[in-house]
């Protein structure tokens, strides 16, 4: 059963524009020029209950606009969107009580007070029973290893710590649908990993549906089986991550460690990098098994690995084609 249904959804912004300088500025006072920008251009997709879907695209592709429309922040210009059976733009209270939108720059907590005080306010906002609130709060604090940090004023927390307490605040009402917009933005590698583990655990424990945008492909690989790629407001791809790699990647990467120095490997494929005994080759996907067998036959090989194209390269290629 689909939890999120999007049919031919559009969002067009009217953006004022003018040349630089005083004269242009004065002209714009009399007659203002507007440009129509199609941020989202007729997208259609469905997401089932419990799915974790990566929503990918370059800056300005329409990812955040889509998330904002699905969470009821923005009115669509046309088309239909449905989340948990609600029309998001109507901003029904029962709808808002079942979703959350986490943005990398979100600020819902009181800056000067410990997060615990703000959590308590969320209990009142979402009408959470005392016992449920305490259990969920403590569970989320434990899952994110927050410990005593929730007792410190938010302004005294680091960016990563603040992001984690913001996430706890966003999930206290145990939303069924999570819209995550760059949740790992600006976090260090350890914190990113912790957050990914947390999202996996939350999804497993509560069966939540997650739609996630991220520029970090590690997030996508760790969390999403399915990805939707959007560019210039249009969907370029919707399917399994592995399918995306299959479709848009024409080569494999061969890592080889030889037993002797100074071997010319150019006849086996494109040499991306070579340093003494070790080298990386790029070979056509269809040629991979033949080239590998030939290489093993002809050279003394100490170690050999074959890898699919890095997901970043695949995505780059998708965007280039878009």
């Amino acid at each position, binding site marked *: 059963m689909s939890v999120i249904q999007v049919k031919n959804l559009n969002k067009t912004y009217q953006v004022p524009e003018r040349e630089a300088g005083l004269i242009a500025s004065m002209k714009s006072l009399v007659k203002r020029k507007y440009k129509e920008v199609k941020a989202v251009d007729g997208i259609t997709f469905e997401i089932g209950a419990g799915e974790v879907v990566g929503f990918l695209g370059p800056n300005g592709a329409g990812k955040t606009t889509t998330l904002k429309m699905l969470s*009821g922040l923005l*009115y669509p210009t046309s088309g239909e969107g449905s989340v948990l059976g609600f029309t998001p733009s109507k901003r029904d209270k029962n709808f808002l009580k079942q979703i959350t939108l986490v943005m990398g720059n979100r600020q819902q907590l009181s800056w000067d007070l410990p997060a615990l005080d703000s959590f308590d306010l969320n209990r009142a906002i979402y009408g959470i029973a005392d016992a449920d609130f305490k259990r969920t709060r403590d569970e989320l604090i434990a899952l994110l290893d927050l410990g005593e940090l929730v007792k410190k004023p938010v302004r005294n927390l680091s960016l990563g710590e603040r992001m984690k307490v913001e996430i706890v605040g966003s999930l206290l009402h145990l939303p069924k649908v999570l819209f995550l917009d760059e949740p790992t933005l600006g976090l260090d590698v350890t914190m990113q990993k912790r957050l990914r583990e947390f999202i996996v655990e939350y999804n497993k424990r509560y069966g939540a549906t997650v739609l996630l945008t991220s520029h970090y492909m590690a997030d996508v690989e760790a969390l999403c089986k399915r990805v939707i790629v959007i560019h210039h407001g249009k969907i370029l791809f919707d399917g399994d991550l592995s399918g995306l790699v299959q479709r848009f990647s024409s080569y494999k990467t061969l890592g080889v460690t030889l037993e002797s120095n100074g071997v010319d490997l150019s006849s086996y494929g494109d040499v991306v990098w070579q340093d003494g005994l070790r080298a990386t080759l790029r070979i056509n996907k269809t040629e991979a098994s033949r080239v590998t067998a030939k290489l093993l036959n002809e050279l003394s090989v100490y170690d050999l690995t074959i890898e699919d194209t890095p997901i970043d390269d695949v995505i780059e290629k998708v965007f280039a084609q878009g």
Partner: protein
Amino acid sequence: MKDLFSYYIGMFRLSVLEEFQYPVSAAFYMIDMVAEPIIYLVVWSSVAQSNGGTVGGYTAGTFAAYYIVWMLVRNMNIVFTPYGWEHRIRHVRLAMALLRPIHPLHNDIAWMAGWKVIAITLWIPIAAIMVWLFQPTFNPTWYQVVAFFVAIWGAYLVRTMFQTTIGLITFWTTRVSAIFELYFAGELLMSGRLVPLSLMPSWVRTLANYFPFQWTFGFPIEALIGNLTPAQLIYGLGAQVFWILFGVLIVNVFWGFAVKRFTSVGN
């Protein structure tokens, strides 16, 4: 309703806690607040004395009473301003508020109500010093005290509704300061903030009847220190209820259009 009450208590508490974080700032704010009524008080007391002791029925003592109560009313009718709306629209705050299953207006009413706890606590010693310095004349009856207590909350809500309406204009213009200044000028003249309304020319008093301003300053003050009859007090409280309901209507109509225009700028 129970959830809403619980939210008001929670937000009120959060606001008080946050104000406690900055007691020095709050104290300096109060000093700033004292300057305006003291200027009015000194000017009008001098005018009264040079006029043989009274101006329009006000003596130096009743002027003192007017402006000391003025300070409390001013603290009570401080609301979330259109500048606040401007700030929350230009930054991430409004987007966050819209994600909550509660109207941001409830947030503002509860938050600013909590803020008053500190402001009024700091007002008490200042008022005591002013009483000692300026010797106010006033002998309110019990029903005046009751009416005053209700009226200061009425003033708070009337002002909240109209400043929220102006604040909502930011959905169209992003900046609203010019319109707010216009509102402020009207309030200064027609509310009893600058001078008791009875001392204003008759055309200003006539004009004031068509605006909500007098119910946010002059009426609560007069309710405590004036010679209003019980009927006049009830009429005044009724007028406040009328303007609150009118304000709620305008805010709701505006809100319906405003959220559709929200473009979530800057986030």
